[in-house]
């Protein structure tokens, strides 16, 4: 045991919340040299009092998990393999797909002339580990696009 010192010594502590279930346990994220060295319970939290379950205790392994990937992957129609695609290019293509599908599937009114004002050809399913702010921007953008099939985990 060459180094007897806890690796959290001298680390910056960033306060966070566990991303797994909805108990909402407080987490302390220890950061050294722009790297997370440890995540554990935040004793200040009145809900969790510093404790975590196995999933919460594994959050560091979650954000550094061996299967995690950091590059966009693209599969073209009828393709048989993944291809590389720069992020900016992917964003551009997605914006184009959205507008194209929106034009193609726009419904101004129903059969009886009632206003619909919507784009029926796009749907969304979101996880419930997204932030409120993210949900808000999503709902706002989709609604402006006329996309109504905006759904999330809560339904599942």
């Amino acid at each position: 045991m060459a180094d007897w010192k806890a690796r959290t010594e001298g680390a910056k502590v960033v306060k966070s919340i566990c991303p797994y279930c909805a108990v909402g346990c407080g987490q302390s994220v220890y950061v050294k040299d722009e790297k997370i060295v440890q995540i554990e319970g935040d004793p200040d939290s009145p809900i969790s009092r510093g404790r975590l379950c196995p999933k919460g205790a594994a959050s560091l392994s979650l954000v550094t998990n061996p299967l995690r990937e950091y590059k966009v992957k693209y599969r073209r129609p009828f393709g048989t393999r993944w291809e590389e695609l720069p992020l900016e290019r992917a964003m551009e293509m997605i914006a184009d797909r959205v507008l194209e599908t929106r034009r193609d599937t726009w419904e101004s009114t129903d059969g009886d002339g009632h206003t619909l004002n919507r784009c029926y050809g796009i749907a969304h399913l979101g996880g419930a580990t997204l932030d409120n702010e993210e949900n808000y921007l999503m709902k706002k953008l989709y609604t402006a696009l006329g996309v109504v099939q905006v759904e999330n985990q809560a339904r599942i």
Partner: protein
Amino acid sequence: MGFFTDTTLCIGCKACEVACKEWNKLPSDGYEFTGESYDNTKELNGNSWRHVAFIEQLGQERDTSRWLMESDVCKHCTHAGCLDVCPTGAIIRTEFGTVVIQDDICNGCGYCVVACPFGVIGEKQEDHTMGKCTLCYDRLKVGEQPACAKACPTESIQFGVVDELRERAEKRLANVQARFAGAQLYLNDPNDGVGGGGSLFLLLDKPEVYGLPPNPIVPTKDLPLRWRTAGIAAALLFGAVVLCAAVRE
């Protein structure tokens, strides 16, 4: 310092196992389904320093059915076999009274493995030294409690000064005896075969049900006797050799 593990409060979540591995950077120990209730960790070893045991006691009568769970850990014995037999001095008793393997000194001889009455120690996959709970020595050094005790959601794992934990354990036993059949303390007696544990347990059944030895004894207890009998055997051997050489046919 030590642990008091109160199994009446254990919900079997295994947060202790994960918190321990995360802190001590231990690897996973294989992905094998055992079918032994919800226990796929199987045992304490060099890669798993906390192990939650699951015992299903489910008879036909629903009222008496129970599912026992216990988070096992190194006992940090007062008389520690592993420490006694370690030939390199890698295993030390720390200023906190805990028993710790220094992995930069350990040469992996494995003697501690067979000297532990609880089967706690095993080889560490990563560096082939022997591994076991350090009671988070590095955390204790900076005034933090061990990772497992901190994570435990229900205070089944309590950390503290051993004497205080002993007192707490006795009180707790008195408190729960009426509620939980079979409640008993384990390793709380300083006069037992290992001089009492630095880890105490409140169990709900006999120790062997949890895979714990009922009357653990530190092997070095008999050491002087063993050297004596070995001395006699050596003397006999010497005598026999001399005799064989002396006799001429």
